[in-house]
């Protein structure tokens, strides 16, 4: 009885998680009138042309390239720099370690609402406004990423690192040949998290990007949502599907490594 109850509670909730996605997918294949009539669940006939409409007439193909470039570069650079900093904090002894670690921790508490105004002013001085690097450079390091990598690298045995040093490896070699293979799951988890954060990021691009050619998908979708350009709900939902798909694909592909790496450092 309890088992039945537990299973139905869990899978009932899981089903609830899928409702908006399912409704989004079903609507994206309906005709305008059918979607608004709210008459049934399944589309009368499947209109794949809604996706072509979203892709071309709403111009998503242009923003797609921007989103991919930003997310891929942020992920590659972000994972590398956070891991290097994490290694320094976990395994190297140097002057000022406590203070630097403390400030890194403190940045995690600083909310964008207090810093985005002056960050914008600073970025404008550095030429990091209204272009793609403006969406990449500020995110190649994060307090969370550094501390997460530090936590993961602390679990690598000191003996392995010492052995490398005795073999005459320098710290960069040790990082690449000893540490990196030992922290593959947390690295994968950080990569997935960084990719998703970058891909889904909305507030920062909203502040930083003005010119249409540098807009990313969330900005484009927000415009569709305000209803000025595209009136058709099915085309809007097709656009939302296009925005939603990549993180889901990335997550499902890397879920094993992600879940293994992710569950580790919080307790």
């Amino acid at each position, binding site marked *: 009885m*309890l*088992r039945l109850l537990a*299973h139905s*509670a*869990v899978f009932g909730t*899981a*089903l*609830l*998680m*899928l*409702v*908006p*996605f399912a409704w*989004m997918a079903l609507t994206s294949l309906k005709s305008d009138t059918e979607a608004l*009539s*709210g008459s049934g669940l399944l589309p009368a006939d499947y209109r794949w042309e809604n996706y072509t409409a979203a892709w071309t007439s709403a111009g998503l193909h242009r923003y797609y390239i921007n989103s991919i470039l930003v997310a891929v570069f942020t992920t590659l650079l972000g994972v590398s720099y*956070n891991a*290097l*900093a994490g*290694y*320094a*904090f976990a395994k*190297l*002894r140097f002057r000022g*370690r406590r203070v630097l670690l403390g400030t890194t921790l403190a940045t995690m*508490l600083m*909310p*964008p*609402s*207090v810093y*985005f*105004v002056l*960050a914008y*002013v600073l970025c404008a001085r550095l030429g990091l406004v209204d272009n793609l690097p403006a969406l990449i450079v*500020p995110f*190649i*390091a994060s307090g969370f990423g*550094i501390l997460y990598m530090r936590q993961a690298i602390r679990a690598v045995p000191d003996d392995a690192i010492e052995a490398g040093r005795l073999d005459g490896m*320098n710290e960069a070699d040790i*990082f690449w040949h000893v540490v990196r293979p030992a922290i593959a799951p947390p690295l994968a988890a950080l990569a997935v998290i960084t990719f*998703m954060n970058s*891909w*889904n990021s*909305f*507030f920062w691009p*909203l502040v930083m990007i003005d010119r249409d050619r540098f807009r990313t998908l*969330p900005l484009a*979708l*927000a415009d569709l949502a*305000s209803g000025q350009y595209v009136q058709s*709900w099915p085309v*809007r939902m097709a656009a939302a599907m296009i925005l*939603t798909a990549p993180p*889901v694909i990335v*997550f499902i592909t890397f879920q094993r490594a992600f*879940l293994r790496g992710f*569950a*580790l450092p*919080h*307790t």
Partner: protein
Amino acid sequence: MPRHSSTAYAFLSVPLLVLWIFTLMPTLGGVLLAFMSWSGSGGPIFIGVDNFLALASDSRFRPAFINTLVFAAITIPVSNGFAFLLAAAVNAPWFRAGAVARLLLFLPAITSLVAIGFAWRWVLDPSGGIVSLALRTVGLPAPAFLEGGTLVRIGSVDLLNWPLLTLAAVQIWRTVGLGVLLYAAAMRGINTSMMEAAESDGASRWRILLTITRPAVRPTTLFLLFTGLVGSLQAFDLAWALAGGTDSAAIDVLNWFTYRQFQQNRLGYAAASGVVVLLLSALAAGIHWTIAGERET
């Protein structure tokens, strides 16, 4: 450990520089800017606490402030409590397809808030939404989820209205999966001998859950509480998407209020509103460390 100062500084240089330039310095500067009046051009003018006094009497700041706190107060306990129960079920040895369940529950957490807000707006749409369709089928009227009025009011203060409740519900929907994931991982680490002993003493499952499991996963609870608080203080995307980009007092949050001041070039005023968020985050951190610290001693 021998010293490796030069290597360490080389490894840390880029990431720490990025953190300082784009987070630390603008935060410290933002705190100073909160005491100034600045439109972005020309020099800022020191005006003392005028920005904060203006915030206190701003008719749009108050709903944004209250909404943000109410949003946190609803979403965090409900999401975490729910996640705890679901994780306990998923983790039970007799539970089938737990991995699939965890995956499905986590799905909302990885998708864009803009897309999610948009999808929910359509799900709740009075004419084409599946919720109103379902309610119509069973003969019930659908409430105006995103346009409805006040639900709870104390004196002249609107504590809860339909759009805010919808926002909170969608946030719970989105965050519960992360809680399940972390709780399930923490529960797997619990030593089972105490549970077995309690079970053979005839303790009920419910009792074991409350008296053994709950305290054992307390670090996870605190972590979720803290990240939940900091996260809800920064809420923006979801409110924006659910409201279709049109701000109203009903669904306003602190971050959105701050953003509007920035858009209108009232940079000092925006910074002051940001400082309020910073103070609330610091308060959350202080409480977190007091509680978490107590446990270790």
